[in-house]
């Protein structure tokens, strides 16, 4: 499902956004602060049996049960075990047409930064190891690049793909 590509606006039409940058799979990722509810330290994560690796956990935020997702899976990034710096970003997203709250894992959270629409670039067609349809754009801050994931595309893909359907087989 190439939803991301269809809805992507031309670079020039994108406005400026405030983003929080984080480390994931050894790379930098940017998430718009507009959808960020809070950043928390991981507490007890409950394993969801038979769920895909992308959303294998559940955690509690002020009484709400929120699924924990790992963007490293769809973005094919290197997976490393959690450290002291590991955090969870609690986000407001849209799942299946309805607003929902999800958490994404972050190996380390860096600063919040202003990103201008003009500075964003398309994902190069060659040489990029991330699935293009999951990445909205590449951002650049000074001499560093960071990846802006297309969260809508990632979540839609997960909801419809067969990997998420696990039958009751022991």
């Amino acid at each position, binding site marked *: 499902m190439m939803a991301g590509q269809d809805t992507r606006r031309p670079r020039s039409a994108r406005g400026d956004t405030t983003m929080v940058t984080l480390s994931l799979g050894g790379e930098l990722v940017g998430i718009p602060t507009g959808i960020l509810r809070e950043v928390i330290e991981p*507490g*007890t994560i*409950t*394993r*969801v*049996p*038979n*769920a895909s690796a992308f*959303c294998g956990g*559940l*955690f*509690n935020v002020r*009484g*709400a*049960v*929120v*699924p924990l*997702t790992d963007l490293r899976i769809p973005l094919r990034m290197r997976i490393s075990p959690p450290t002291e710096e590991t955090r969870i970003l609690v986000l407001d997203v849209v*799942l*299946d047409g*309805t607003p*929902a709250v*999800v958490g994404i894992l972050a190996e380390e959270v860096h600063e919040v930064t202003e990103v201008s629409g003009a500075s964003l670039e398309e994902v190069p067609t060659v040489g990029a190891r991330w699935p293009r349809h999951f990445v909205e754009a590449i951002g650049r801050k000074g001499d560093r690049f960071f990846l802006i994931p297309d969260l809508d595309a990632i*979540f839609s893909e*997960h*909801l419809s793909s067969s990997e*998420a*359907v*696990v039958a*009751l087989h*022991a």
Partner: protein
Amino acid sequence: MSNDADDLFLIEARQLAESLEAGLLDMKSRPEDRTLVDSVFRDLHTLKGSGAMFGHTALATFLHDFETAFDAVREGRFAVTAALIDLGLRACDHAVTLLEGGEAAPGQALLAELTALISGGDAPAAAPAEEGAAPEEGAGSGDWQMAFRLAADCLVLGARPQVLLDELRALGATDLNPDFDALPTLIDLEPDRLYIGWRLRLPGHVTEAEIREVFLFNEEDLRLELTREPAGPPPEVEAATAPPAAGPVAMAAAPTPPAAPPRERTMMRVPAERLDEMMNRVGELVIAEARLAELVARTGDAQLVAVAEEIQRLATGMRETTMSIRMTPIDSITSRFRRLIHDLNGALGKSILFEVEGEETELDKTVIELLADPLMHLIRNSADHGLELPEVRRAAGKPEAGTIRLSARYSGAEVVITLADDGRGLDVGRIRARAEERGLVAPEAELDEQATLALILQPGFSTAETVTELSGRGVGMDVVKRTVEQLRGTIEVESVPGQGTRIHMRLPLTLAIIDGLLVEIAGERYTIPLAAVEHIIELPEEHAKRGDGSRFLNIRDQLVPFLRMRELLGSEGPPAPFQKVVVATAGELRVGLTVDRIIGSSQTVIKQLSPLHSTLKTFSGATVLGDGSVALILDVPQLVAFGQIRDSMEAA
């Protein structure tokens, strides 16, 4: 602000129309029941009165005659007949049409029928009695001489003579003097009686109407003498108005009101969002309370423990009350079914009895509303296709009247709603043929009876050659199935040819807060709805070995399929010694769930799973435990079903 009242009126009016219809239908079986007649009359009267208040004059006028007719019934001057009830029901429909702005014309026909029915007409038009001679404008401009005396008990009733006098003064009264003629001696003076009268003059331009206006609400026992002074026509002398009846007052109704029909309860309308909010708050309270209990237990402080227990008791009470608020008994929709059967009786030429069992069974309000249309469809189907014509039934040795029965009951953590008829049953052969025709099943596929019957729930299937006006409204059997599944329920079709058909709908009780049994499997915690737990036993030694392929336990001489939860959940590590088996039920079926340890039971707040996890059928939701961690709730009906599948796979 009046818009608010207008909206309320429409809601209220519809409610009244429903209550009216229900009352009329009940009267069919209990025509002599006075409380029913009274309640029908009261509904008519209230609907008429408030209808008039909110500008629905057509409605008020229309209902007036029906009200009068029922008044006649109430007073025993006219008997309740099937024709009257039928007319009443049609009037009810017309009233609803009028409320929705429909044509008033059909009402005339109904009223004509009513008149014909009650011919010999006892519709006493209340002749308004005059309260005195019609006011007359004095042709001349002579001043008025007035003397008046109010009723002796008027002060007790709240009259304010001083206000009256002020008003008269405002009209221009002069020479105002009290009249103490009626004043008794001190001993006989009763402090709350008015003995004083007044005399005064009023200018000639004041009309009699204006004067009367002043005495509004004081007309009873008013002695008013009004004389025009010469300069105009002959003096007008007012006689005293009719004195009150001297004798004891005869009341139509007894001083103590008749026992209200059980339906009467003080009801309140609350927007559903507020209820949801309240449920959320109570849910959060339950979670917080659990955490408190845990922390307090650790301190061991007896006083704290006592207070924590008290809070738990209060939280439980609140939870039960809030849960019950959204729960509505199924009888809130059964009246429309009764109405449907009543109509079908006539239209189909069949005699149909409708029975309801378990009307007081409660379900979440939204669930009931979603079920209403599917149930209507099923009932129509039964009546139309299931039940045979009277001759056919007689020939088959069945009672002429066919019976359709709706029953609702609780079963563990579910509610089971069954619609049964004693008609001709389903023809498995025809169903199979039809399904093949429609491409729903390959000719060589082997299906047992259960599976074949289930074919009628597939979209694209329809056994009726002609979709009759009654059953073909776009609510196919597949929509029924979809609705039930949307509510996380299951639907099952059962039939015996020649004897009848039964359709069972199993729905989970969608309570937001349930009692949960907390268990531990491989160090992870899960919750099982306590209502679904039948009992807990130790896993027998012989099954405890890992890799043991057995799938059944012998529990009280019954073979119960059991699932090793560790395997199902992909848990790691060796099983604990002395595993337990939680025997859970869904409907008539059981399954044993093997767990490492039983931790205990507690109230758990059910949180919906994210759409990301909705495909995982093993779990029906999640909950937050006392220590803040999340525990998944096992979906018992799914696990039971899985146990059955395993069972049949084993057998194969």
